């Protein structure tokens, strides 16, 4: 088989998966570039969408990532799923409200793997995954402040309050630094 034919075959395969996924999810699946697909869904559909993708061969949950869109007042949660069979990455994106960041957990599908990813998202963004029984912090033991990766967390002010004393002449230099 020539390289051109191979490429054509791959494209056909991609098209086939995209049409099948679009039909099952009832959403438009986009091709970002070669072997990279993404789809945007409603937050309440997340477990169903993930299980449909799982059945189609996207068995490996690479990671769950959260982006804080503070101007739009929402968190974008992205589930990166890898298919060993098709060698393709599917990103399922969903947006939840920043005021009430709650979403169903996917631990029913990926148990321990999803648990760890969700713990991290909970720790750094304060997203609550309903159904995940273990949301204890990974790195931030005894943390009392707000979730640190949120855009409205003023870390410099927090550090100045928490660690330094302005009246101490050896430490007042830390208060001269502007953001």
């Amino acid at each position: 088989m020539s390289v051109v034919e191979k490429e054509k075959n791959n494209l056909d395969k991609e098209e086939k998966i995209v049409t099948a996924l679009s039909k099952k999810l009832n959403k438009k699946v986009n091709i970002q570039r070669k072997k990279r697909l993404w789809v945007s869904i409603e937050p309440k559909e997340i477990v169903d969408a993930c299980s449909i993708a799982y059945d189609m061969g996207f068995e490996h949950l690479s990671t769950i990532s959260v982006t804080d869109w503070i101007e739009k007042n929402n968190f974008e949660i992205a589930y990166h799923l890898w298919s060993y069979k098709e060698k393709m990455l599917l990103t399922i994106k969903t947006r939840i409200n920043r005021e009430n960041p709650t979403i169903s957990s996917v631990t029913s599908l990926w148990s321990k793997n999803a648990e760890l990813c969700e713990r991290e998202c909970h720790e750094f963004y304060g997203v609550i995954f309903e159904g995940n029984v273990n949301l204890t912090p990974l790195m931030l033991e005894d943390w009392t402040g707000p979730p640190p990766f949120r855009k409205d967390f003023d870390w410099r002010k927090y550090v100045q309050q928490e660690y330094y004393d302005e009246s101490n002449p050896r430490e007042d230099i830390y208060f001269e630094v502007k953001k």
Partner: protein
Amino acid sequence: MVKKKTVMKYFVKAIWVFNWFNSCGFTELVPVVGSRWDMERFGMITVNSPRKADVLFIAGFQTPKSMKRAQKIYEQMPDPKFVLALGSCPITGGMYWDSYNTVKKLEDYLPVTMYIPGCPPRPEAVFDAVFKIVQHVHGMPDE
């Protein structure tokens, strides 16, 4: 009565080290162990249990989580024990001075015997600190 100096002399003859390194701490201290500077010619050995150690080396930035473990290690070490903090991170936080989850002053958590500045400290500086401990013991009055 056994003299304090006599006891201490035996302890500092061969300083056994337990390492508690975060981030780049270990890689920067490898030359001290390696053949060029070779700490073993002075009797310094890295031990696998804090219960055998005389000196606790702390390097790299420390977080409240790692500090808890370091305190547990320190409590397990037999007396007399010393804590040597290596590098700028344990001294002031180093380049992580404005990190929200890094310990800025190590002495708030552990009794530090000596700080060795540098990022990373030279192996000569580490040996100098160890010799200062030895000298201190030899200079003790005979009580």
